[in-house]
C-alpha cells in the first residue's frame, strides 16, 4: 500500500486578501448593541484581561458610553417582600417536640376543664334545682315562677274555670294507672306531701280523674353528687396527692393540678386566690406564659 506522501500534493499559491487592511476593527467600532452587551458584562465584573482593557479604553474616550456602561451597574433587582404563606405547614416535628406539644395540649385542656367546672358548676346546680319533674296527662306548665306547676284538670262544664287551676309548689312525679275507676267525690280532695304545699281541688267530676301514684323525688343534694362525678374524681385524686382528708373544693383541685404540672414539666403556671381582708375569696387569677385571666369566685363555689 502506497504512503500518502507518494501521491502528488497541491501547493497553495501565494495569494493575498486585498481588502484585509479594511477589515481591521478597533474597540471604538463596536456597534451600540455590541457595546451594550460588553458593558453589561463589564458592569457584572465578568470581563478580564484584554476584554476589560478594550472596553475601558472605549469608556475613557467616550463620555456618553461611560454613562451607558455605568447605568448597567444600577440594573440590580432587589427581592420583594413576598412571603410563602404555607411555609409553617411544612415544618416537621421531632418526636420529643411532639411529646411536649401533646403534654402541653392535655395540660391546657385540663386547666380549661377545671376552670369551666369552677365557673359553671354553681350555675348548673341552680338550673337543676329550678327544673320540675311533674308529669301528668293534661298538665300544663303555665307559670314563669320557678318551681311552680299548674295542673289543668278537666272539670265539668258547670264548674267555673277559675276553680279548675290549682298550684302545687313541691315537685312530684305522677304516674297514670291503666284502669280508670268510676267514682265521684263531692268532698274536697287533698293531695300533697307537706302541709305547706297541699293542693285543694273541689268539685271534681270523677269521670275525668285517673288513678295517681305520688312519689317523693330524691333530695337535691344526692342528685348534685351524682352530677359532679368529675369534681368528685378530681377531689379524690387531689386528696391522694396531698394526703389530706379535709374536704376539697374546686380551688384546691385546680391548685393541686397546676402544682403537679409545674413540678412535672418545670413550667411556671400560677393559680392564685384573691381574698378580702376578712379572708373571703373574691377571685382566682391564673397566669402562664400563654394565658392569663382572672375569674370571680361565686360564694356557692367556695
Amino acid at each position: 500500500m502506497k504512503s500518502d506522501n507518494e501521491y502528488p500534493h497541491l501547493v497553495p499559491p501565494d495569494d493575498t486578501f486585498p481588502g484585509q487592511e479594511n477589515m481591521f476593527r478597533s474597540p471604538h467600532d463596536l456597534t451600540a448593541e455590541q457595546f451594550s452587551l460588553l458593558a453589561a458584562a463589564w458592569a457584572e465584573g465578568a470581563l478580564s484581561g484584554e476584554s476589560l482593557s478594550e472596553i475601558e479604553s472605549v469608556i475613557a474616550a467616550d463620555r456618553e458610553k461611560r454613562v451607558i456602561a455605568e447605568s448597567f451597574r444600577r440594573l440590580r433587582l432587589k427581592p420583594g417582600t413576598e412571603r410563602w404563606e404555607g411555609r409553617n405547614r411544612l415544618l416537621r416535628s421531632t418526636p420529643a417536640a411532639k411529646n411536649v406539644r401533646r403534654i402541653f395540649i392535655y395540660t391546657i385542656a385540663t386547666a380549661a376543664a377545671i376552670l369551666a367546672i369552677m365557673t359553671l358548676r354553681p350555675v348548673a346546680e341552680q338550673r337543676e334545682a329550678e327544673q320540675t319533674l311533674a308529669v301528668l296527662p293534661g298538665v300544663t306548665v303555665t307559670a314563669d315562677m320557678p318551681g311552680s306547676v299548674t295542673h289543668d284538670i278537666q272539670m265539668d262544664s258547670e264548674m267555673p274555670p277559675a276553680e279548675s287551676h290549682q298550684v302545687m309548689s313541691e315537685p312530684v312525679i305522677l304516674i297514670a294507672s291503666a284502669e280508670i275507676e268510676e267514682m265521684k267525690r263531692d268532698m274536697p280532695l287533698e293531695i300533697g306531701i307537706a302541709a305547706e304545699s297541699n293542693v285543694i281541688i273541689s268539685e271534681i267530676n270523677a269521670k275525668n280523674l285517673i288513678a295517681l301514684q305520688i312519689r317523693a323525688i330524691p333530695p337535691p343534694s344526692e342528685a348534685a353528687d351524682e352530677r359532679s362525678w368529675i369534681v368528685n374524681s378530681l377531689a379524690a385524686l387531689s386528696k391522694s396527692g396531698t394526703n389530706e382528708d379535709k374536704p376539697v373544693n374546686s380551688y384546691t383541685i385546680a391548685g393541686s393540678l397546676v402544682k403537679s404540672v409545674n413540678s412535672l414539666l418545670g413550667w411556671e403556671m400560677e393559680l392564685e386566690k384573691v381574698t378580702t381582708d376578712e379572708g373571703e375569696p373574691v377571685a382566682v387569677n391564673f397566669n402562664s406564659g400563654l394565658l392569663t385571666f382572672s375569674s370571680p369566685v361565686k360564694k356557692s363555689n367556695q
Partner: protein
Amino acid sequence: MTVKEYNSTVKQFGDPVYRFIYRSIKDRERAADIVQDTYEKLWNCVTEIDFNAVKSWLFTSAYNRMIDVIRKDSRLVAVEYYDDASLYAEENNSDLNEVLHHALDRLPAVQRSVILLRDYEGYSYQEIGEITGLTEAQVKSYIFRGRTALRAYLVKTSVWQ
C-alpha cells in the same frame, strides 16, 4: 440532614425559593404549589441530602419543577408578552426596582430565571449553570442579554433617558 436541619431550610430558604418561582411565573398559587412540591421531595430524601448543598438542591428542584409546569400550562408562558398599553401605563413609575420587575416580566423565562438567581441570591455563573442545566457561557450570555433588554425597557419607557 436532620429533621432540625430540614426545618431550618424551610425557614431559611422557603421564602427565597418562593420569591424566585413567583417572580418567574407570576402566579402565586402555582408558585406555592411548586415550592411545596419541592419541599415534599426534599423531605422524602431528607437523609440523603447534605445540608451544605441543600440550597442549591432546592433551587434546582424548584426550577425544574417550574419548567415542567410551564411546559404543561401554556398560559404561564404568556406572561412574557405584554401589550403596549401596559408598557406605557408604567411610564411614570418612579420606583426603579418596581419598574425593573415589570421589565423582567417581559423577558423570556430562562433570562428571567438566571437574572433572578443572580440578583436575588447572588449565585455565581457556575452555580446558576448547575441549577438551570446551562453552561457557564450560556448563563453569561442570558444575563448580559437580559440586562441589555432591561436597560432598553427603561429607556423606552422614559425612566432613563
